[in-house]
């Protein structure tokens, strides 16, 4: 292999560790510096660690977590992190909601706390769903209006996205038939929670389970369920990746600040409601008849995640609120 070519490829890979905006400004000259240094002597471990450390730092700055960033970038960073929080919050809430829905298909909970938990998580889920739809629609419109879709040649990413969605719909429909709720029971649809929705929500979040820490319980599942638990998160990750590749990162663009603030605040409030619901269920809820509505270890973990997420989103909303208005012109 040509040594010069190999070094050049290595430096290109190293520069790719840095965030895109940083690369656009400093990438070329930084790559040349790396080439000059590598040509001079073989670098020590400290040299590599320095590169990696500063690449991580540059990415944290890009996300507004470290360093001083300008107002527009701060708003965009807050919005991007809130969008991540919305996705994670949706996952956690759906997982808990689906488990509560299992019990509710058989019997109404005997505890008012558990009943309130379902209601709070349901309202939070609706709030997150509206926020997610708004963010997705806004990003798509912005990408179309700027012609970014055409620039990015999104055929492959769009194909992956469609494939993932179709597989998730078909898979959740098939796996959902073994839902421990009604599963075709005569009582189906007797409750607040529609059975068809509960089934799909359960199937889509089946992989969020404490069973991973208990191989014996895992072994009790059928091979199809186990395969689905492995494949479904990959499909979800691929769907998110292909969406982001097609549309690009969430940006506030020329939106008025109150819309951005509203989106982040709605996300924070929705996740807070979900965390409250999870807390009511995990800490104060009593089981219903036949051992239904019993929270598991995974629900306590999800409660902690949603609690942290709601605090993080509230801090992001504060960040958007405190960003001076004068910095919002593009």
């Amino acid at each position: 292999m040509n040594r010069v070519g190999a070094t050049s490829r290595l430096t290109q890979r190293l520069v790719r560790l840095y965030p895109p905006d940083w690369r656009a400004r400093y990438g070329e000259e930084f790559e040349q510096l790396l080439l000059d240094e590598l040509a001079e002597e073989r670098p020590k471990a400290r040299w590599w660690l320095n590169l990696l450390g500063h690449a991580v730092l540059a990415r944290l700055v890009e996300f507004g977590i470290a360093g001083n960033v300008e107002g527009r970038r701060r708003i965009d960073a807050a919005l991007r992190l809130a969008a991540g929080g919305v996705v994670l919050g949706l996952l956690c809430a759906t997982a808990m909601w689906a488990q509560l829905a299992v019990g509710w298909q058989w019997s109404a909970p005997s505890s008012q706390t558990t009943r309130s938990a379902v209601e709070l998580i349901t309202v939070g889920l609706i709030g997150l769903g509206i926020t997610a739809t708004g963010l997705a629609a806004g990003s798509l419109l912005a990408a179309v209006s700027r012609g970014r879709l055409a620039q990015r040649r999104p055929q492959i990413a769009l194909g992956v996205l469609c494939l993932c969605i179709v597989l998730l719909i078909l898979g959740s429909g098939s796996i959902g038939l073994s839902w421990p709720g009604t599963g075709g029971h005569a009582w189906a649809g007797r409750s607040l929670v529609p059975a068809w929705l509960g089934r799909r929500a359960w199937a889509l979040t089946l992989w969020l389970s404490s069973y991973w820490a208990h191989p014996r319980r895992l072994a009790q599942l059928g091979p199809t369920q186990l395969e689905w638990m492995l494949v479904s998160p990959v499909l979800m990750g691929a769907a998110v990746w292909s969406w982001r590749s097609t549309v690009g990162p969430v940006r506030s663009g020329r939106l008025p600040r109150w819309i951005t603030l509203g989106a982040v605040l709605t996300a924070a409030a929705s996740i807070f409601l979900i965390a409250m619901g999870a807390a009511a269920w995990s800490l104060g809820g009593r089981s219903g008849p036949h051992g239904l509505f019993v929270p598991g270890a995974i629900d306590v973990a999800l409660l902690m995640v949603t609690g942290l997420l709601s605090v993080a989103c509230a801090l992001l909303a504060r960040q958007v609120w405190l960003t001076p208005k004068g910095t919002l012109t593009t």
Partner: protein
Amino acid sequence: MANDREQGNGALGGLGRYAGPGTLILSSLADSEKHGYALTMDIAEFAGVRLAPGTLYEALARLERQGLIEPVASTDRRRPYRLTAQGAEALRTQLAEQRRVADIGLRRLELGARLS
């Protein structure tokens, strides 16, 4: 206040722990414009410190953002930087402050040697 410091209308004090690389880079650029590799070599020669690439470019980006240095147009991939008037003033203030501290330290050392 943080914004004032970030915009560099004072000394390098606002750089905090980055003042070290910042002072070295500004000192290196004080006599002529230099690109990244030339800066590394020059600083290694006059200060005995070799700035690693990550540290160098983080400091360069900060100094540029603060308006203390600016890039010079170049067709080469090695883009040179030069000191701005604001950068020269910041360096002068920073070095004067370092000299003041060094003078105090040296005086006290002499005093201590005499007393012992």
